């Protein structure tokens, strides 16, 4: 079980470099892929899911070469792409049945048992006979997730699974991942930092196709320790411009506005030290001009 990426590069049409010598390795838990739009997350996941050929480099999924052993890899992974498309006229049960058959789950009892189990875990049982086209976005996403976990994969690749979901659905999906991470490696791509914060045991941050950080979230937060500050600004006042202070958040408080940011030294007399969170770290990483902070390279 696990994913290993070595010097992976993907160039589209010989011009656009979507991935540039990316390196990472994860064995278990949840590997969070974080980065802004266009950073190469989806490209990386598509290569892992054997849907795209890398231009150069090596990618091993569950010990198998993604260039040479595509069919074998497909047997071991579950994949949930961004904006999944399902047959709209099939019911939830039929959709999972169809996907189960595509996974060669030929034993009827075993397949039905798995489908029931997946529906139970994803709270889909009451939607069993509803056609997919009548489901809300969140419900559909759960069905799509269901088809991805049906074969009990050793690596589950999920691309922006919580995008467009309401908070309740998002929490439900996150909890599902947290539970599932005990059974397989989950590669979770998102640009929602809170999702990663909740479940990721390792983190890869991409920007312009380059790895900005790879390691544990704890190590990243530790690197920021003592460098995150909060300032209180009157509600009608302007946020001060302070040299060397990188603003990472702005929060409305009773009677004031709290400005949060990263700075090497105390930015002003009234600045208070704060416990770093992943959003601070993410903004800090995105703003840093350095080449790379990858620790696994």
């Amino acid at each position, binding site marked *: 079980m696990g994913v290993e990426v070595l010097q992976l590069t993907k160039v589209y049409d010989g011009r656009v470099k979507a991935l540039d010598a990316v390196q990472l390795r994860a064995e278990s838990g949840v590997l969070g892929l974080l980065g802004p739009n266009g950073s190469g997350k989806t490209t990386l996941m*598509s290569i892992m*899911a*054997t*849907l795209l*050929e890398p231009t150069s480099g090596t990618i091993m999924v569950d010990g198998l070469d993604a*260039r040479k052993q*595509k*069919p074998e890899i*497909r*047997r071991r*992974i579950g*994949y949930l*792409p961004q*904006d*999944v*498309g*399902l*047959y*709209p*006229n*099939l019911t939830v049960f*039929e959709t999972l*049945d*169809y*996907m189960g*058959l*595509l*996974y*060669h789950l*030929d034993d009827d009892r075993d397949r039905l048992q798995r489908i029931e189990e997946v529906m139970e875990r994803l709270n889909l049982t009451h939607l069993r006979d509803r*056609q997919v086209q009548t489901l809300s976005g969140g419900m559909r996403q759960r069905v*799509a997730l269901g*088809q991805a976990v049906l074969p009990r994969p050793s690596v589950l690749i999920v691309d922006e699974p919580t995008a467009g979901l309401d908070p309740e659905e998002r929490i439900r999906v996150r909890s599902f991942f947290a539970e599932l991470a005990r059974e397989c490696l989950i590669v979770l791509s998102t640009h929602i930092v809170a999702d990663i914060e909740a479940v990721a045991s390792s983190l890869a941050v991409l920007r312009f196709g380059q790895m900005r950080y790879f390691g544990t979230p704890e190590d990243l937060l530790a690197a920021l320790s003592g460098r995150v500050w909060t300032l209180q600004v009157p509600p009608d006042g302007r946020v001060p411009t302070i040299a060397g202070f990188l603003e990472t958040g702005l929060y409305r408080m009773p009677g004031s506005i709290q400005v949060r940011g990263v700075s090497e030294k105390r930015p002003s007399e009234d600045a208070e030290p704060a416990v770093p969170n992943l959003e601070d770290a993410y903004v800090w990483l995105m703003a840093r001009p350095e080449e790379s902070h990858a620790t696994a390279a």
Partner: protein
Amino acid sequence: MPLRRNLRLLRLAVVSELRGPGLRLLGLFGAAGAAAYAWSQGSSPAGAALVLGAWLGTVYGMGACLWFAYAALRDQNEKQGAVIRSKPVDGAYWVILLWGSGLTTWGLLLLAAFLAAAVAQVPQAGVRSLVVYGAGFLRAAWVLAAMATLSFGFSRMMRSPLGGIIVLFAWFCALAGLNYIPVYLRPDYSQNLGLFSAVGLFVLFLTGALVERLRRGELRRPLVPTLGLVAFGCVVAQAALAAYARSPEQVVERTLVYQNIAQQDLQEGNRAPGFWLPDGRGGQVRTRDYAGRILVIYLFSARDARTVQFLDSLNGIAEDYGSRGVQPIGVCLSQDQGDGPALVRTSGYQFPIGTDPTTSAVAPQASSSLAAAYRAETLPILVVTDRQRRVMHVSKVPVEDSIRLRSWIEARIAAEPEWHP
């Protein structure tokens, strides 16, 4: 297990498609239209089934071409395509599964129309109509399958509906340019189905075994599929040669008998042009086999249900006057060389029906060796001879002349009562 799995996958895919309102409506209207047409045809299902088969094969075939063009886009889009491509399914298998489910869906729609037509004619024509329409369905389904396969293959290869649109456009041109496009390029004619089926399977094989697997990075040993493709190519070449050889011009050029038939001339009082024509059962219909009989020769277009209906009257004459030396002979003129044999197989008529394989047009002007000999610019035409095969009566509107026909025959029998079988 794979068979059970595949059947279940097929069933789920077909159920999914048929739940769509568009196809359901098409199925409903198609069945209602076919039933209404069959009901209006009275007790003669053979001609109605031929005409319906030609129409439904073309209309549903074109619908299937369009649908496959759209489905190629739908199945390969970023969303659904990504889900499916990430499954442990071989590219060729996936292509076959989609093709099979699409064809089954359209086959069921077509079947619904034919079933409705057959049931609508049962009260007037009896259960025989089920057999007749069953044969019509098989012919129409073959046309649909061949053309839809081409559309599917090209659309998937190009990853664009354009592939299917090109097939549809070519088909439309072949239909519209009736006199300008060679007969062997018409996909809806029975004699060309071998060629179009072979081309369809070639394209399907190319799409599944090579293109799709190459795209999915699964083509590790290209030699085997390449050899398969070469084999399919040979089959296509053979089928193309066969279709070309069966084109009317080639038949005339190769076969002396048709040149001789064309050189005869119909003159009242003179001997009626003689002929040898295939009888649709592997034998020949020959005028010389009926020496000494009063011949009722009927040249008709198989695609005109009203004139085909007149065969019922001829059958009545065969039953009533056969023992007195009267012999009706039907001559089917159709560019589709399968029409005559289909009529022979399904109609159960008591008299022979030959097919003129040199027919290159039936409307607005008929063109074939026999049409030339019988001066049949327009169809149908009915000729009654005496026992020496001399032309006694010629009718260009035999349908209206069906009552007079009996009086002509009675008069001939009265004039020449002597006949020894």
